[in-house]
């Protein structure tokens, strides 16, 4: 039995609780509870009217049973009855039961509201408080409807007791949170703001919370709160520690109120009024000064309360981001905390430092302290040892946030060395971060390649596909690093045991660029092949498949090892491999190597073309891991605003780590906007659209959730498009729907399944009919739910006029005759433009063919020129088209001339084709 039982104890309840505690097993407990429930049920149903005390006791027992984790499906009515009791103690239990076991049963809510209404009108402050607490605890919409207009009146009425004001303020806050539309503050605004001047600090504390919530939504209406909040804060921070009596907490003056006021101020920019601004600066300086004073007490409560205010002040300084001296002081203060013996303080310092490092204008300020911070961090990393992951996680976050070009090598090295001992739970994230930093701040790509290979060596299991795909993309796109990459992977593969991811990277890179190191006898073709093949049998099927592709590439690169490789392919373990994919590759590659001429082999197995520039998928992955808002903003534009490091762009631009200049925002923001795009209007994605002018298949859209691939075929004025929706996540997409809107084309889409399983792909067929010549492409609108959030995606479908071309072969004479026939000025469109891509004859030919016309050889007297002819088929008409493309290698220019019988067609085709060169 408890030592103290204040108020009126309920003996029956105490006995029951004792019984439960004495139960030896879960079964015994359930049995005892069922017995009690049966007893209470019979009492409630019985003929004899229960007195208030019994009712209260049984309701309380039900509550206890519920809190033990059992379901309660009766007693609500009795609890509501208690509300109308005029005995405080019964009323109180009634309210408690309702607060804990709120039921959306509308009849009951009406009765509850009735009880609340009576108590609010009672003018008895204790009863009023009970009623207000109940509204604040339940906060349902029905309650908001009933009381939202009444409570502001209670709050600002002159004769309301302080304690009731406090409850009313927080009650309103809760209603505002659940049903903001029902809480009109209009006429009360000024009087609510003036509660900040109230003499009673408890009232001010409650009111500050309310005002902060309201100001967040309507900052203009509550602007006047800024000066009052500053004045209040100023009085608190300059008060002697005993002035505030019971609001002083372990020698810290009103810490809760201070924190709330500082938070309210974070709803606003720095005050414009100079006097007010300097008063606020003084406050913040005073808070920073106090941190340097010797503690007034050794109790942890003293330092916690003091530092709670300090951290909130630093948050405000970071939010204002305008006072360099304050920012530097904040930074120094955090630096001190980084070495503090208290884990909590180190954790918080790391966290705040992260925001500070990524804050817009303070980056320069932080940078001046970078060295100290890194040193402090090294020490703290060492100190943390193996104790607390959350702290080390924060440290890694901070390293990532403070990384820029000047310290990237150091930080990446630091993270790599930490990775060797890092906790398993954060390894994958560190790997992603290292990969991103290494790419973003690569000054030379040999460093990048080394870093990634080190990553694989140290933490191969945690290197996701995105990371090794990315290193390959980069190596393929940058010819200055290919030789180095080949040499490095070759060396790395020498290790007796190397991670399978290294075999993948090695296989791919040697298959493409092995020739670059084949001159050295130590890495001759045969040595390379034997090295790769020595790993073959230890690898999984996908890696083996990749290696087989590397082998066939070897056959093309190094005719001298052809026989050796063919022998390997011919062996039973390959040709009769139980795995279909491996068997097929072996059979096909072997056959290919036997029958194809050297020329054909060279064409088929040509070096991979550069990858299309695309955002780093690693970044998207990290984002997905951390969730939006958790990643420090590594905005490059910030740095260029400060004029410091324009050169950081040079490399990342090549890789398109930064987005196209037209989009204006930085990549991280872009990625966010995709993942958290509200259901409102979506921008139509047309980024990949131009790539489909001369081809019909490929990936038209991709974000971190979804990939959309296309395969299309056209015949005359009809087209069929297969759209493949790939769910890149491991979670289902729900309520998936898609529709096509087109102003000019007839597009018929077949319905799709509303669910796409995680990792699965779904196909949709679109039938397209071209009615007449057109210029606007159809738009594919997609909607689905992912993890509760509605995703809206709109993609411009690459259906252009030239898709409906039928190529026309013709002789030179015919061509010139028709060319002359189409001689009217409006029928011809000509464009002279600068080459955007290397001027390669074969590529140009392929593009013109892909555009849909026949390429006519021997028509143009100048063999360097290209001439083509075709007919655009629409439902209503056919339009003949002749074109001529004249390259000027010296000037790196092209001249494109198009003649068709219809000027709009000439115009549109010219626009489309000229963008391709």
């Amino acid at each position, binding site marked *: *039995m*408890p*030592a103290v*039982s*204040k*108020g*009126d104890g309920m003996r029956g309840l*105490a006995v029951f*609780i004792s019984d439960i505690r004495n139960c030896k097993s879960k079964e015994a407990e359930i049995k005892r509870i069922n017995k009690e429930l049966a007893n209470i049920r019979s009492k409630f149903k019985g003929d004899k009217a229960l007195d208030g005390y019994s009712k209260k006791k049984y309701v309380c027992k039900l*509550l206890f049973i519920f*809190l033990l984790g059992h379901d309660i499906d009766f007693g609500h009515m009795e609890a509501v009855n208690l509300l109308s009791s005029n*005995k*405080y103690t019964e009323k109180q*239990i009634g309210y*408690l039961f309702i607060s804990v076991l709120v039921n959306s049963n509308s009849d009951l809510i009406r009765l509850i509201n009735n009880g609340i209404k009576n108590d609010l009108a009672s003018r008895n402050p*204790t009863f009023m*408080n009970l009623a207000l*607490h109940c509204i*604040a*605890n339940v*906060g*349902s919409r029905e309650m908001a409807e009933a009381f939202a207009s009444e409570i502001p009146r209670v709050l600002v009425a002159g004769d309301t007791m302080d*304690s009731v004001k*406090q*409850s009313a303020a*927080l*009650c309103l806050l*809760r209603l505002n949170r*659940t049903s903001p539309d029902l809480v009109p503050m209009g006429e009360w605004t000024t009087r609510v703001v003036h509660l900040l001047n109230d003499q009673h*600090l*408890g009232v001010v*504390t*409650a009111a500050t*919370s309310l005002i*902060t919530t309201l100001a967040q939504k309507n900052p203009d209406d509550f602007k006047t709160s800024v000066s009052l909040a500053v004045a209040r804060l100023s009085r608190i921070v300059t008060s002697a520690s005993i002035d505030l009596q*019971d609001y002083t*907490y372990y020698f810290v003056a009103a810490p*809760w*109120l201070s*924190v*709330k006021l500082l*938070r309210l101020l*974070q709803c606003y920019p720095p005050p414009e009024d100079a006097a007010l601004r300097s008063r606020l600066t003084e406050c913040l300086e005073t808070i920073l000064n106090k941190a340097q004073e010797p503690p007034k007490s050794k109790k942890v*409560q003293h330092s*916690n*309360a003091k*530092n*709670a*205010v300090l*951290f*909130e002040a630093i948050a405000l300084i970071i*939010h204002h981001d305008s006072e360099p001296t304050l920012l530097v002081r904040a930074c120094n203060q955090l630096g001190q905390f980084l070495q503090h013996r208290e*884990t*909590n303080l180190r*954790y*918080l310092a790391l966290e705040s430092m992260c925001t500070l490092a990524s804050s817009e204008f303070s980056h320069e300020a932080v940078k001046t302290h970078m060295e100290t911070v890194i040193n402090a961090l090294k020490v703290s990393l060492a100190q943390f040892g193996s*104790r607390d992951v*959350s*702290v080390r*996680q924060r440290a890694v976050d901070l390293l990532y946030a403070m990384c820029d070009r000047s310290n990237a090598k150091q930080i990446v090295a630091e993270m790599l060395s930490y990775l060797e001992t890092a906790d398993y739970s954060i390894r994958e994230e560190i790997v992603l971060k290292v990969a991103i930093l290494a790419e973003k701040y690569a000054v030379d790509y040999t460093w990048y390649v080394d870093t990634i290979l080190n990553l694989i060596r140290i933490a191969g299991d945690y290197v996701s596909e995105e990371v090794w795909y990315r290193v390959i993309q980069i190596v393929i796109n940058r010819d200055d690093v290919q030789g180095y990459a080949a040499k490095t992977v070759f060396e790395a593969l020498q290790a007796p045991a190397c991670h399978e991811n290294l075999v993948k990277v090695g296989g791919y890179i040697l298959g493409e660029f092995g020739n670059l190191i084949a001159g050295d006898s130590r890495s001759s073709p045969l040595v390379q092949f034997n090295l790769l093949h020595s790993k073959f049998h230890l690898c999984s099927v996908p890696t083996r498949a990749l290696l087989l592709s590397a082998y066939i590439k070897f056959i093309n690169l190094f005719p001298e090892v052809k026989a050796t490789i063919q022998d390997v392919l011919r062996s039973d373990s390959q040709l009769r491999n139980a795995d279909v994919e491996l068997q097929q590759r072996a059979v096909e590659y072997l056959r290919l190597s036997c029958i194809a001429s050297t020329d054909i082999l060279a064409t088929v197995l040509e070096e991979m073309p550069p990858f299309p520039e695309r955002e780093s998928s690693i970044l998207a992955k990290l984002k997905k891991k951390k969730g939006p808002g958790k990643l420090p903003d590594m905005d490059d534009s910030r740095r260029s605003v400060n004029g410091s490091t324009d050169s950081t762009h040079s490399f990342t631009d090549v890789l398109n780590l930064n987005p196209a200049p037209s989009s204006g925002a930085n990549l991280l923001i872009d990625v966010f906007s995709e993942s958290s795009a509200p259901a409102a209007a979506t921008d139509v994605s047309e980024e990949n659209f131009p790539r489909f002018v001369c081809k019909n298949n490929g990936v038209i859209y991709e974000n971190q959730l979804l990939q959309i691939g296309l395969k299309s075929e056209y015949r005359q004025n009809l087209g069929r498009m297969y759209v493949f929706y790939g769910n890149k996540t491991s979670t289902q997409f729900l309520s998936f729907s898609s529709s096509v809107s087109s102003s000019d084309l007839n597009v018929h889409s077949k319905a799709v399944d509303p669910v796409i399983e995680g990792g699965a792909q779904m196909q949709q067929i679109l039938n397209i009919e071209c009615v007449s010549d057109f210029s606007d492409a159809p738009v594919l609108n997609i909607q689905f739910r992912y993890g509760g959030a509605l995703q809206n995606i709109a993609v411009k479908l690459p259906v252009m006029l030239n898709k409906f071309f039928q190529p026309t072969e013709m002789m030179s004479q015919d061509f010139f005759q028709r060319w002359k026939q189409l001689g009217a000025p409006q029928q011809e469109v000509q464009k002279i433009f600068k080459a955007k891509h290397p001027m390669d004859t074969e590529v140009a030919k392929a593009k013109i063919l892909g555009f849909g016309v026949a390429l006519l050889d021997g028509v143009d007297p100048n063999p360097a020129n290209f001439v083509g002819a075709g007919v655009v088929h629409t439902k209503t008409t056919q339009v003949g088209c002749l074109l001529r493309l004249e390259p000027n290698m010296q000037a790196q220019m092209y001249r494109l001339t198009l003649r068709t019988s219809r000027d709009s067609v000439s115009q549109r085709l010219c626009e489309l084709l000229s963008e391709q060169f």
Partner: protein
Amino acid sequence: MPFLCLFMQFMLLFSRQGKLRLQKWYVPLSDKEKKKITRELVQTVLARKPKMCSFLEWRDLKIVYKRYASLYFCCAIEDQDNELITLEIIHRYVELLDKYFGSVCELDIIFNFEKAYFILDEFLLGGEAQETSKKNVLKAIEQADLLQEVRYVIKPPWEQ
């Protein structure tokens, strides 16, 4: 702009054996969800070692917890909220219980759970500190207790 109207999402009190002693939810959640959260958190917090940081990231929230004797006090706040002041909210609540029960122990909270709720409501409302003065909170509770006793001993005339 960061989301500034932060508030406590819920508070849980549980014993070293993982028995839930008090739960206060400031966000509407289904009973099922509440049970799931409780189970998960109790497990996570009990698994932590004594010298570890009192804050941990959990889902998209931050958990602030502290152990007093056999009881764990555990609050969920939003990511941007002030962790240290939340630790002191816990401490102040412990002080209030201590003062009211006179050196509080787990048994007091088990047998007088309704009182623990009443005290909490006087101190925190809607997840925000309502009254941080120890004296004022206790005054309110003691007044209520007084009401109880008076009403019981002397029945008002209309009830006789």
